[in-house]
């Protein structure tokens, strides 16, 4: 009996050491390969980390579904937004001629683009589904400039890991990793269903991240900031969502 318990003790000890070392190594590797979301430290961050890591390992380059023209929703729902301020209304009265999208942070050539500039860039059109975290969804045809094209124009530095994007609404800002930022279907969106992007749907300029939920698809974007770390932004949780109790990664 004592022989067995000693053997048991030794094997248990070995397994525990191997397990602890394994976990440590796994955490290091996960950090290095970008498998840890910025809100990993919140109350239920463990589950969030598992979800994000699993999806980045399994679905990193997966294209999102494209639907046929006949599947475009006849009755899309724009959802509520906070009241648009005076600054927005002034720009709206000028036909958004003075709307700017600034690009800064870790870039070789910081830039600021007007809507007219953006319209001269290569455009892409995608018929994709947008789903709200509440459960509802609609399909629309979105057209705009692939975010990856803009990142190329400004010369994103090799150490960039995230793109932070802000709305003209001060409390609405988000960020995505490079898997979504460089994804060909992620669009800086100017048009919807063949026309200009209507204001309730985020016009004149909306970030469309089709592999994530609606709240990552920020309306009225004015600024992109490229960075290697999200620690310096807000409370360091990655975006406004975790600060309001919602997950940073919304691919689920």
């Amino acid at each position, binding site marked *: 009996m004592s022989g067995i318990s000693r053997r048991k003790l030794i094997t248990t000890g070995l397994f525990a050491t191997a397990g602890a070392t394994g976990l440590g190594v796994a955490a290091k590797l996960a950090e290095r390969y970008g498998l840890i979301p910025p809100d990993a430290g919140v109350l*239920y961050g463990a589950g969030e980390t598992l979800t994000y890591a699993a999806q980045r390992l399994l679905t990193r380059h*997966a294209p999102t579904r494209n639907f046929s023209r006949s599947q475009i929703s006849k009755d899309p729902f724009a959802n509520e937004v906070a009241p648009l301020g005076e600054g927005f209304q002034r720009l709206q009265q000028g036909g958004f001629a003075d709307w700017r999208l600034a690009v800064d942070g870790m870039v070789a050539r910081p830039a600021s683009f007007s809507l007219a500039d953006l319209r001269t860039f290569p455009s892409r059109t995608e018929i994709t589904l947008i789903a709200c975290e509440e459960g509802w969804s609609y399909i629309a045809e979105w057209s705009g400039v692939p975010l990856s094209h803009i990142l190329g124009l400004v010369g994103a530095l090799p150490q960039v890991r995230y793109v932070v994007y802000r709305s003209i609404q001060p409390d609405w800002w988000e960020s995505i990793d490079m898997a979504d930022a460089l994804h060909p279907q992620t669009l800086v969106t100017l048009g919807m269903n063949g026309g200009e992007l209507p204001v309730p749907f985020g016009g004149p300029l909306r970030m469309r991240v089709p592999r994530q939920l609606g709240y990552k698809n920020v309306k009225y974007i004015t600024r992109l900031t490229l960075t290697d770390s999200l620690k310096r932004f807000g409370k360091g949780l990655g975006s406004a969502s975790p600060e309001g109790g919602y997950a940073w990664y919304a691919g*689920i």
Partner: protein
Amino acid sequence: MEIPAEFETAGQTAGAATSQGAERLRLRHSAFVRVTHWLITLSFLALLVTGVEILISHPRFYWGETGNVNTRPLFTLPIPSSRDTVPTGYGYVLPDQNGWSRYLHFEAAWVAVLTGLLYGAFGFFQGHFRRNLLPAPSELSPKRLAINIARHLRFRRPSEEEAGSYNVLQRLTYLLVIFVLFPLVIWTGLDMSPAFASAFPAVVTVLGGRQSARTIHFFVSIFLVLFLLVHVLMVYLAGFRNRVGAMITGRLTQPRERS
């Protein structure tokens, strides 16, 4: 090497004292079944509470890929909502609990899925499914089933022999929960993930679309809640303390309790 008592076959008797009357201690559930049972219980309760919270932010259901407040729903639950954009007929809006509910829903889903996978592997390789859950063919005759159903409907307490094993209705119900409802609720849950649906579109389209998956997710959850209620009622009828005790310690201490 001595086999630890926990790894004996469920239903076997342990020790010499067992054959002596009311004091017998039976190993009713193996350690693996007990641990996975309570892990699933915990995660299911978390999934249920958070699932209800998420649901009330949009208590409307649709079929196909799309659906929103501008669309005619398949059906609407007559409950208030936590969003003022949803027309409910109630004059008030419930507080938004979706943030933590979503975090916890997916964390609990991970616990449920990982536990379910371990349990499934154990069930196949240790013979738990074959031995304890697969009904004997003779039990499946319409006559035997009818007798069993009638006994359940009269709320008869299980007989002495039955106390050490599962009866045929239990076996069929557990198999349905383990191999149909549980996989289906995980499947339809995953369908609502935009990243997962992008990588594996066929698992969404085969069900008719994202909203169809959401609607099926809701109905499967209802069936799982029904199962939970009947399960707890049956445990109560069979002797609550004794049965819950057996799922904790592995042993039925008083087979004749309350008889």
